[in-house]
């Protein structure tokens, strides 16, 4: 085989990647320094003006806060629930464990758009099952507008996000649990350690690297999540659940200010790049022993 053959074979894939990833990224970067609008002529270089407009916009800071809450709270809750289910499934109570494992992973395989619409109907103030259950149980009076109330809309999308992400955490934790050597538990039992102590001193330390990876992945994916929020609330009501990916669309395709939209997407990209680099440092390396 010639020395150049691998490069020739890789060529089409690299060209395709450059076309669909590198070119749009660079074009976006260029647009972020230009006055680009779909509704008026422009196109001149404006330096950092678009970035200044983004950081001057109170909606950016509100969206940034919402995104951080959505990403961190959503991921932490999903991790806790995922760990709980993984611990239950690890008990291996006959065939039911297999059935439960399959059932628990359903939310993960449902498209976020479909899930978003389903949650929208579940939380509907007049016809939703959530209000029906809450009022039937006497917990709350019916008719609460979960998605129509600026105080609860973000909380609702976080719940939907947790529901969608916890199965992934569960599967990863389950794999981690099954990799813990049984000898560690046996030795601890011989030493008289209670189940709680075994959990905190054996299980959790063994799951530390998986937890870090999951936390970072969850935050990265949530930071970038457009579908769930857009389908459920479109960032409303009155911007109370506005997150950065939806705001990029708002700037670019509602206000048609592509320059500002591009600047914001570069800001989001930079944040995600930082998180991704962190992930690469945290993720277990293949050559690690």
């Amino acid at each position, binding site marked *: 085989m010639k020395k150049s053959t691998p490069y020739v074979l890789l060529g089409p894939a690299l060209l395709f990647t450059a076309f669909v990833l590198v070119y749009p990224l660079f074009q976006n970067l260029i647009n972020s320094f230009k006055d680009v609008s*779909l*509704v*008026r002529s422009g196109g001149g270089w404006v330096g950092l003006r678009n970035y200044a407009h983004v950081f001057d916009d109170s909606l950016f800071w509100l969206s940034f806060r919402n995104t951080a809450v959505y990403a961190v709270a959503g991921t932490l809750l999903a991790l806790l629930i995922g760990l709980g289910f993984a611990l239950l499934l690890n008990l291996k109570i006959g065939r039911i464990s297999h059935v439960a494992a399959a059932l628990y992973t359903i939310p993960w395989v449902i498209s976020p758009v479909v899930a978003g619409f389903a949650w929208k109907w579940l939380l*509907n*103030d*007049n*016809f939703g099952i959530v209000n029906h259950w809450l*009022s039937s149980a006497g917990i709350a*009076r*019916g*008719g*609460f*507008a*979960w*998605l*129509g*109330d*600026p105080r609860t*809309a973000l909380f609702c999308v976080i719940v939907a996000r947790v529901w969608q992400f916890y199965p992934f955490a569960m599967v990863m934790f389950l794999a981690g649990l099954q990799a813990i050597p049984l000898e560690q538990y046996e030795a601890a039992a011989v030493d008289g350690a209670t189940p709680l102590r075994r959990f905190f001193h054996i299980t959790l330390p063994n799951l530390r690297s998986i937890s870090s990876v999951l936390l970072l992945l969850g935050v990265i994916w949530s930071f970038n999540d457009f579908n769930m929020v857009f389908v459920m*609330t*479109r960032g*409303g*009501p*009155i*911007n109370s659940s506005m997150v950065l990916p939806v705001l990029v669309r708002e700037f670019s*395709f*509602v*206000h*048609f200010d592509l320059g500002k939209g591009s600047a914001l997407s570069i800001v989001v990209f930079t944040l995600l790049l930082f998180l991704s680099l962190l992930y690469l440092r945290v993720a277990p390396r293949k050559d690690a022993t």
Partner: protein
Amino acid sequence: MRQKALSALILALISLSCGPKTGVVEIHDWNFGGMPKLMEWLRQRVDSFERRYPGIKVVQSQKSWNMIRELLYADFSAGAGPDVVNVHANYAAEFGEAGHYYPLNKFPDFEEVRKWYVPHFLQSTRYKDNYYGLPSSAIAFVLVCNKDLFDKEGIAPPKTWSQFREAAKRLTKDTDGDGVADQHGLVLLGGDKGGFAYRLAPFLYKAGVNIMSEDLTRIEFNSPRGVATVKLFADMYQLDHSITPGFLAYTLSEMNDLFCSNRAAMSIEGPWFRGMVGEKSPGKDFYAVPVPVPDDMVDQYDTAPTLQDMVMYSINARSKHLNEAWELVKYLRNEEADMAWIRNDLGAIATTDYALNSPEAKQVRDLPMYVNELKHARPWPAHPNIIAIANNVIAPYGQKAIVGELSPQEAMDQAADEARRIIEGKK
């Protein structure tokens, strides 16, 4: 050898499937929104057009009503887009100014064609000295009152603001006795910014409020009457609790569900609503009446303007087949075609004198009321930034005032400031 032959066969098939038929012009026609019945009628009309003009093939596409601006701007800016499109007439100014629509008055027979239409309908498609569309259907925003609930309560549809507020209060009830109102006087569309603005504007217009000055240089919707209009809704929401609490999340479909299930007594709608309600709840009836006016304007109840919306057929200025596109637009919008709006409930009002004055028109329910409302109605101001102002300024600030995040005065003043910055090109 066999591989070469197979490759040649695949290439031949690809070129055959991709290439246009010789001598046939392909016209792309985008339709935004519309009821299934209208879509079916359009398909039949296009089939008939293709039989009449064998050299023209029409490719129809159905697009989301909520995505009009995004889709058109994205395509037009790239120098692409459909040859023919039917959209709101208030896009005439915005897209006409941007050079995306072809001025139809440049076609030699335009003077003949324009005679088909009710003159003020055609005016809605005009921006500066050009006409950028042929009216497709007209819409006047009115108040729809749930007949079951109004009759049960023994009240008539309201004509004034105080009657409106009182009716909404009386029709807000806890019907199942759980201590929470499950029937509300009014439902508003809050989950769609454009839809919300289109429901606030009829009340502003009926109260004599101008969105902008006649010369389109000043913002005027924060006048005392403009603030009073928003305060009316804010009081209904915050004090009377007669507006559905979750309105900020509602889309048209959720509003329809509430109305059909007797959980909402009133809504601000148009001629499409009877078809929508009929589809969901056959046999359900409602009163369609003009939008109420302030108490001191009761003598102008039938004559004060509501919001007029018009759908028009326009032609892409970059179309390579302008003449063929023009033939298609005329065929879809001529007097004969317009009769379809009289014979079927297509969700809007006919726009030609011929159809509106036909004997069959007398049988159409609510038509005289809609024709009268349309006679006085006003469209959004013909300013290129009006859609941005309606969707991104009037709607969010109006919502903030209604739920009490800002006072009506603060909301309207801040909205006016923002709108001013938009028309001055500072935002």
